[in-house]
C-alpha cells in the first residue's frame, strides 16, 4: 500500500503540494512513483518559467514509460530540485522527501480545488 502524508494537498494526476507561505512545493506521490517503477529521468522546467494550474510542466520517465507532470497551481517556478537531474531514483526512494519544483503561487485559492490525504487515498483505492 502506497503511503500518503497528512497536511499536504493532492491532485488527481498524483502530484502533492506542500505550502510554505506563498510558495507551493510540488512533487509526485508514492502511489505515482510505485506505478511508474524505477525512474530514469525527470524532465523539469526552468526557473522563472510561468506555469498554469492543470497544465503540464514536465515529465517523469522510467525505462519504458513516460508520464507528464501537471501543475496543481499557477505561478512562477522559483526553484527546481537539481539533485533529481543526476539521481531520479530519489523519487523512488522517498517521493515525499524529494520535491520536484517550487512555485511562487499567483492564486493560492487554487489549493482549495485539491484533495486532502484521505480523499486522495480513497481515489487511489478506486484506481
Amino acid at each position, binding site marked *: 500500500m502506497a503511503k500518503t502524508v497528512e497536511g499536504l494537498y493532492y491532485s488527481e494526476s498524483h502530484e502533492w503540494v506542500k505550502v510554505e507561505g506563498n510558495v507551493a512545493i510540488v512533487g509526485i506521490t508514492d502511489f505515482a512513483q510505485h506505478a511508474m517503477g524505477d525512474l*530514469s529521468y525527470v524532465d523539469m522546467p526552468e526557473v522563472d518559467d510561468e506555469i498554469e494550474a492543470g497544465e503540464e510542466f514536465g515529465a517523469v*520517465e522510467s*525505462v*519504458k514509460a513516460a508520464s507528464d507532470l501537471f501543475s496543481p497551481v499557477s505561478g512562477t517556478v522559483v526553484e527546481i530540485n537539481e539533485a533529481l537531474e543526476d539521481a531520479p*531514483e530519489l523519487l523512488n526512494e522517498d517521493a515525499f522527501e524529494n520535491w520536484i519544483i517550487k512555485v511562487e503561487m499567483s492564486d493560492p485559492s487554487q489549493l482549495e480545488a485539491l484533495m486532502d490525504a484521505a480523499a486522495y487515498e480513497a481515489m487511489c483505492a478506486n484506481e
Partner: protein
Amino acid sequence: MKYYDKLIFDLSKEGRQGYSLPSRKWNAVLADLPAGLVRGEEPALPQVSELDAVRHYTNLSQMNFGVDSGFYPLGSCTMKYNPKINEEIAAHPGFAGVHPLQPDATVQGALWVYEQLAKSLSEITGMAEFTLNPFAGAHGELTGLMIIRQYHMARGDEKRTRIIVPDSAHGTNPASAAVCGLEIVQVKSKENGLVDVEDLKPLLDDTIAGIMMTNPNTLGLFEKDIKEIAALVHECGGLLYYDGANMNPLVGMVRPGDMGFDVLHLNLHKTFSTPHGGGGPGAGPVGVAAHLAPYLPVPKVVRGEDGLLHMVGADGEACGRVSGFMGNFGVLLRAFTYILMLGNENVKMVGPLAVLGANYIKESLKDCFELPIDSVCKHEFVFDGLKDKSTEVTTLDVAKRLLDYGFHAPTIYFPLLFHQAIMIEPTETESKETLDGFIEIMKHIAAEAIEDPESLKTAPHTTPVRRLDETTAARQPILKYKDII
C-alpha cells in the same frame, strides 16, 4: 549462439590497416590547407587488419537472431522470408553504381524500375498513383499527411488542422501527425476492438483534415464499418489515411482504394519482402487517389513526350520534397523483384495464407492464453497474457522463455489496450511444421508457468547474454566507447 565480448576498438593496434588504396602522388597535399580549417587530433578510430574485422563482425553476427535463423512472429512487423534473389538483383553493378544526379537519359533503367513498381503497387492497392520517395513507414505517414494538408490548403480550406486517430493506433500515427503540425483527436474503440462509429460522429466537423486508420487494426481485426466511416469522413470534407503497416493480410483479397481510402503508405520491408536490416533501411511508398496526385512530393517520375522517363522537380502543387534523392532505390529494386517472382498467380495467396497461419495459432493456443476478443483475425492477433493468472508469470517472462527455445519473441505490451498483450504474426512464408513447433513450445511454457514459474522469471538462460539492467542504462547512459574506458 555464443557470447563474444569484444568491441572493434579492443582489437585495435597502432600501425595495422584493413584497406587497400592506390599509391598516387599528387602535387596538392592536405598540408596546404589553412591551419584554422584543419582538425586538431587524429580521430581515435580502430586500426585493424582485414581478417580482424571480418572475424569480429562474423562473431557479432552470431549473437543475432534473424528470420533466417528461426521463426520470428513479431506482431505488426510482418517478418516474412526475404528472398535471396532480391539481394542479388539489388547488388547488380548496373544499379549500384548509378549517381542520383545523372541526367535522365542515362538512368532510364532505374526510372523504369521506379515507374513499374509504382504501377504494380497501384494495381495491388487500388490507388491511382504512387511516390516511392519516402524512406520508411513513419516517413510515408508523414508524407501522406503533408499531402492531405496540402490538398486542404490548396482549396483554401485552412482551418482543417485536426486529425482523428483511433486509440488502438501505432504510436507513430499521432507522432507523425504532430510533426506535420496537426492536432490529434482520439476516437475510441468498442469492446469488440473496432472503431466506435457513434464516438466518431460527433468529432466530424469542418476542422477535421482526415482520419488515420490501420485496417486490419492493431488487434488484427478487420474494421468492418470501414465503408460507413469513409462515407462519414468524406461527407464532413475530410480524407482517409490508410496506415499500410498491416497490409499483408489484404494482399490479393482487398484493396484499400476500394474501401474509400484517399492516401496510404506501404512498408516494403513488411509486405513486399525486403529485409528489415536490423531496423532499416525500409521504404514507405505513398499511394493516392487520382484527385490527390498533384500533391505528391517531388521529384516525380513522369514519362515525357520524348518517350523517356524524367525526374520532375518543383511544380508548385506538390507538398514539397521529402527525400534527398529518389528514395531507398535499393529497397525498391528488391520489392519489384519480389513482385515479379510472385506474379499474378501467387499474389492472390499472400493474404489468405498469412491469415490462415494466424488463425491456426490463435485457435491452437486459446486454451492456454487469454484471448480477449474471440473472432476471426487477419494476419495477427493479441493474447492478454497467460490464461492462468494465478502464477504471477508475466508476458515478459513468456517472451524471454521463448528465446531459450529458439524462437524470437512476439511483440509484447502493444497494443496498450491490454496490460499483458502478446501480439503474434506468423506470415505466409512459415510452414505448418514451424507453426506446430511454436504452438507446442507455447503450450509447454504455459505448463511451466504453473509447475516451474522460476524458470520463466529468470529466463532466458541459453542466450549469449541474459536479462539486462535497462534502468542503469537509462539513468547513466554509456553511449560510446570513450564512456567505457
